[in-house]
């Protein structure tokens, strides 16, 4: 059984926990560095990236999280994706692990938040490619560019990148944890193996 951490500083961490537990994973809420021990992977949830960043700095989590991400699977959703990126064009605490350029609040304010269907290439392991993924975007950031070994995983119809992968790092700017569709969570659990 996989042992997966969910960074529980602020945001929608419980939603990830519920989905992971339904898939049979053991879930640990991570608020302090010692809680990273023995995990196979970690999810950084949506929330406010400024809040999560400040709390991560205050409790000495930045360096332990970077070290974790060099060896283990890390998935950031929305604020978590911002936190993973190397380039966010702003001065706020981030991990800077993933070779993507991301821009905060790229779609506007809450009245512009939306849901839409995405085609996602999950790699054919579960034959689920045909079904579109209903993706919820909340004051979402955008992946403006992928660099180096990072690859787009999902794009809007106009080609804008909304999910990317680089080795064991996964970034989605939308919220798979707000729907009952667990394909992204299955995909991430595969990455932790």
């Amino acid at each position, binding site marked *: 059984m996989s042992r997966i951490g969910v960074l*529980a*500083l*602020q*945001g*929608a*961490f*419980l*939603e990830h926990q519920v989905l992971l537990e339904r898939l049979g994973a053991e879930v640990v809420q991570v*608020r302090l560095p010692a809680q990273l021990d023995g995990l196979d992977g970690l999810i950084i949830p*949506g*929330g*406010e990236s*400024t*809040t999560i960043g*400040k*709390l991560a700095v*205050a409790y000495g989590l930045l360096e332990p999280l970077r070290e974790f991400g060099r060896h283990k699977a890390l998935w950031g959703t*929305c*604020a978590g994706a911002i936190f993973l990126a190397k380039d966010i064009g*702003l001065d706020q605490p981030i991990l800077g692990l993933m070779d993507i350029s991301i821009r*905060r*609040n790229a779609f*506007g*304010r*809450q*009245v*512009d*938040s*939306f*849901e*839409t*269907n995405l085609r996602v290439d999950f790699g054919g392991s579960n034959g689920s490619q045909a079904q579109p993924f209903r993706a*919820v*975007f*909340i*004051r979402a950031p955008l992946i403006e560019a992928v660099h180096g070994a990072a690859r787009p995983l999902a794009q809007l119809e106009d080609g804008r990148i909304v999910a990317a992968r680089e080795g064991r790092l996964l970034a989605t700017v939308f*919220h798979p944890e*707000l*729907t009952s569709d667990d394909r992204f969570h299955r995909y991430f659990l595969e990455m932790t193996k």
Partner: protein
Amino acid sequence: METQVGTFAVKKGLAQMLKGGVIMDVVTPEHARIAEDAGACAVMALERVPADIRADGGVARMSDPDLIEKIMKAVSIPVMAKCRIGHFVEAQILQSIGVDYIDESEVLTPADEAHHIYKHGFTVPFVCGARNLGEALRRIGEGAAMIRTKGEAGTGDVVEAVRHARTVLGEIRRLQNLPEEELMAFAKEIGAPYEVLLETRNLGRLPVVNFAAGGIATPADAGLMMQLGVDGVFVGSGIFKSGDPAKRAAAIVKATTHYNDPAILAEVSRNLGEPMVGRQISSIPSGDLIAGRGW
């Protein structure tokens, strides 16, 4: 059909992103930046904090859109603003300037003494106050995408927030233990829409995010509300009516994250300076209490 804005999932979703966080009342762009720097997950933009509304008396209305826009420009986190209960035109104005959440709030003077706003008709999401399960479910039935306890705003006395949180959570526990044939009578008794009541029973919690508000003034107050089982906290007058707002704001943010860790709660409670001067609720004449506003 493929791409939609303003769906209930999108409205409720923003509140889900605020969970485990602190939403702070601010009256100037400078306050808003202090709140953001302290780690607030959102701010509530208004002209006067509840303690001042209470002290000043008179009719309290929606804030000047110019002030709200200045606060929206000052910070990158979500900005909420208050409209009066039932005042759907104030809500239309707030939606048109692009606030991220509207608080249909009893802290302002009600504009309608029988009806709340039909919130499903808006793209912007709403948060509403509640003292009990029936009130919470009526607001959700009208389209509220987030609930908060009313507490008693502007007092610095947490007792009413505790009462309201315990009442809502206790009534949910009772609901889960009722046999099915008693559910309709229970819905009638508490004045709740039946379908929302059933959903709440199935989930074992409100179907939307539930914060505490009204009287929270210290890190320990925030920890208390979180341990009682709410999803996050609003702090109104408690920060900018205290001696050292930046320090207190950061301490309450940390307490809300580490609400189950007494050693961290002790650490962040040290040397915060003067808290806001509180008003014990039992000393306030019943006609001056605001939690009773809402129907």
